[in-house]
């Protein structure tokens, strides 16, 4: 920690006794609690942990971005401890000394490349502020593998793809040749296939420049792929630290163990609940299976609980349709603005997709390939230009009401009307269904309570507004609303990709439970093959608006042949 005593090169970063406390609206949170770490030059330390555990706060503190005690947005920040960057010892709570270090000795790559670049500046100008010359700018754009550097330099951020923006961010961060690079979830907002490239780029540049990297992520797979060491955080403290392989294979802390167990791979057993037994899911299984919770938990832990055990008592409907969803030669294009000439951009080309009754299908494909569009067409939110869309028995133009289709969106928070209570949200959905219309007020209330139990939420959330719930809770409310009356088809648009691993795990378990217990047919859009494999019977790959293959989940690893499919496989195996 002290620079004078070590004759060799000083560590890229060393942090000691770092404590950060936020006070906002009279409420204090200790975001970081007495944390110490160091990173040798050229070394990469992964900081993992659930959301809100204080990872980003450490990232800010080591850049001296918490020196203003007033904070931004009305709150207050108190910081204690020391930060030593490349041999310079600094106080993270005072501004003195940070000039010349921040942005020079330490730089950052942030998560969201869109909002992190000034929308009113061209890339060239922005980079020019850092590199100082057009030639240098050009060189750095080359360095981060941007193909047409001249054109890109003249472009504005919104004209670039997410991956290109993130490359620009990396160029910005590395152009000053820092001793320490802080990478705060640099790939979370990117397409899985792009993610791999960016990670490769980062690793290469780190090795070339020899700088230390503090790599913040919540994805254990990513941490394993790029970092030598990993530190696991929980509630502002580091609970475990060690070489990556060791921590991931032999976790010592309970929390780490849960994290590791929640991680899905292509080897995960898809016929059983994933992850460690989890009380709320267990509770809701109890409803379905009529078993003691303790017994269930034991079976789950012993891997004796199979999805096939559920839904056995479910009556088979006699005249159930063969297909829950049929899309036949569906095409769709959108008008794109631009002044002068309006053009139409074809998004879907002759898509054929059938989901049998009780079947669950995962739709995977790169960003922009048309996954959401298919889902929106199935939900009746968009109309296909051509082709037939049949949900259940009837072809629908718009949504024909009834039990119809239900959707669970990625962003559950914003799919719940913020000013309505959970009760009114659920009652409203119920009231719009044929089932609900036949019930009286008390029965409806009962129905709503049952739906909440099914997603393991206590009845006390009924009178709460969405903003007062956590992200995971909101996602469950959205699920409860979708299944308060079981729909003819359940559509899920990346319902877990915004959730913490362990939360995502329990949502997957819940969905699987519903699927098996109620026999809900499901269309599940995702980027994550591992998740697709767990939730779906069949994986359909879409590329540029065309369905390119359909593979049974059970032999996913071997049967996939399409280009994009292979890349996805790589991303998971990584």
């Amino acid at each position, binding site marked *: 920690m002290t620079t004078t005593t070590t004759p060799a090169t000083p560590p890229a970063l060393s942090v000691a006794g770092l404590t950060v406390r936020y006070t906002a609206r009279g409420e204090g949170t200790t975001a970081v609690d007495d944390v110490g770490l160091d990173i040798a030059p050229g070394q990469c330390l992964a900081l993992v942990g659930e959301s*809100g555990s204080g990872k980003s706060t450490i990232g800010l503190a080591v850049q001296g971005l918490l020196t203003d005690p007033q904070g931004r947005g009305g709150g207050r920040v108190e910081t204690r401890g020391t930060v030593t960057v490349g041999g310079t010892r600094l106080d993270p709570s005072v501004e003195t000394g940070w000039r010349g270090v921040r942005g020079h000795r330490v730089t950052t790559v942030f998560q969201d490349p869109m909002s992190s670049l000034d929308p009113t500046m061209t890339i060239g100008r922005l980079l020019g502020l850092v590199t100082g010359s057009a030639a240098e700018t050009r060189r750095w754009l080359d360095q981060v593998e941007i193909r047409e550097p001249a054109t890109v330099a003249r472009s504005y951020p919104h004209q670039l793809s997410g991956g290109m923006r993130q490359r620009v961010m990396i160029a910005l961060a590395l152009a000053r040749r820092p001793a320490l690079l802080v990478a705060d979830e640099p790939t979370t907002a990117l397409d899985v296939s792009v993610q791999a490239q960016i990670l490769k780029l980062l690793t290469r540049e780190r090795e070339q420049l020899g700088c230390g990297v503090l790599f913040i992520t919540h994805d254990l797979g990513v941490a394993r792929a790029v970092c030598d060491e990993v530190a696991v955080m929980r509630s502002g403290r580091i609970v475990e630290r060690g070489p990556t392989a060791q921590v991931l294979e032999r976790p010592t802390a309970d929390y780490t163990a849960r994290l590791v167990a929640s991680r899905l791979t292509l080897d995960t057993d898809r016929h059983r609940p994933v992850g460690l037994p989890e009380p709320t899911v267990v509770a809701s299984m109890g409803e379905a299976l009529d078993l003691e919770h303790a017994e269930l938990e034991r079976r789950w832990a012993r891997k004796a609980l199979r999805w096939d055990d559920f839904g056995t008592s479910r009556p088979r409907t006699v005249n159930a349709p063969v297909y829950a969803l049929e899309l036949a030669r569906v095409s769709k294009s959108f008008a794109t603005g631009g002044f002068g000439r309006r053009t139409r951009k074809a998004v879907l080309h002759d898509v054929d997709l059938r989901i049998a009754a009780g079947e669950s299908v995962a739709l995977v494909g790169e960003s922009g390939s048309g996954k959401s569009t298919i889902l929106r067409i199935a939900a009746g939110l968009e109309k296909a230009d051509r082709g037939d869309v049949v949900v259940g028995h009837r072809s629908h133009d718009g949504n024909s009401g009834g039990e119809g289709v239900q959707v669970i969106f990625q962003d559950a928070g914003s799919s719940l009307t913020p000013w309505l209570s959970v009760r009114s949200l659920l009652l409203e959905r119920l009231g*719009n269904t044929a089932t609900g219309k036949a019930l009286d007020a008390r029965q409806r209330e009962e129905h709503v309570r049952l739906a909440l139990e099914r997603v393991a939420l206590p009845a006390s*959330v009924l009178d709460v507004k969405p903003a007062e719930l956590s992200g995971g809770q909101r996602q469950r409310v959205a699920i409860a609303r979708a299944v308060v009356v079981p729909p003819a088809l359940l559509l899920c648009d990346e319902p877990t990709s915004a959730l913490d691993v362990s939360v995502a795990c329990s949502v997957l378990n819940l969905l699987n439970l519903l699927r098996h217990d109620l026999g809900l047919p499901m269309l599940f859009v995702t980027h994550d093959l591992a998740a697709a494999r767990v939730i779906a019977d069949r994986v359909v790959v879409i590329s540029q608006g065309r369905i390119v293959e359909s593979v049974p989940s059970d032999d996913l690893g071997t049967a996939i042949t399409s280009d994009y499919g292979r890349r996805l496989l790589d991303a998971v195996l990584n």
Partner: protein
Amino acid sequence: MPSSTDTEGRTGDPVDAVAAPSSSTVRRRRPKKPTAGTISLGALAVVVLLAVIGPWVSPYATNIPSGEPLLPPLSGGHWLGTDNLGFDVLTRVLAGTRTSLFAAVVVTVASALAGLLIGAVAGFAGGWADAVLMRITDLFLAFPATIVAMAIVAALGPSLRSSMIGIAIVWWPLYARIARGEIRRAAGSLHVEAARIGGTRGRRLMMRHTVPTVLPTVLVTASLDIGGVIMVLASLAFIGLGSPAPSPELGLMASAGLPYVLDSWWIPVMPAIAVAVLSLIFNYLGDALRSVLRAGGA
């Protein structure tokens, strides 16, 4: 520094802590120092109280001379002096405050409601109806507000009522614009789509799931606007388009008193100050409301 929306998506309580919304997620209220908002609310209450009971408690009438003309403030029982006709200035200023307040609130509420309705219908219906309604709105926006207001007042005859109508006619398009923009944005938002998928349609979808998003913006705009409307009303009265004398109207009193400003400054200045105070209060109130709503709505 992460903004609150930055992490919102993934913010999840640990799954095992699901039991009810925990105390940390529900915002706790604790007694706080008085803020600009509460102070201005208090000030408004005082002003309203004064304006409502003031003229009633005052020993003087608003339209009957109650002393020598041109008495300076604090003389002969006239706290703010008397005007050129011998009216008690304080009594008239209070009565004028009441009139202004009432008129401004009515005008603002009326134009906000009209604008909200038109904007909401246009934004929600989209397509043809939207195009027609917004064209009309744009047209009204392009009308020179002063001229239209003045022409209307001239046509209806100068009175408080006509200037209220005149202002409302030029004021609603602003709200229609705001409402329409917000509604269009809201109509594309996930929770509206979700409600639609859930089978909610038509007016219910609009009133229950869409319109409430606009309310905070409209509310803030309206509360900030009341001050502005008070000023415009006063200005119209100032150029002779308000109520006939001797009804106590602040703008009229200021303009009628202007010739006396050099020697009896209190005659025009007191009502002008009353306008300023009213408008100041609403400025503060609007600002406070905005920051509360913005912080709460994030």
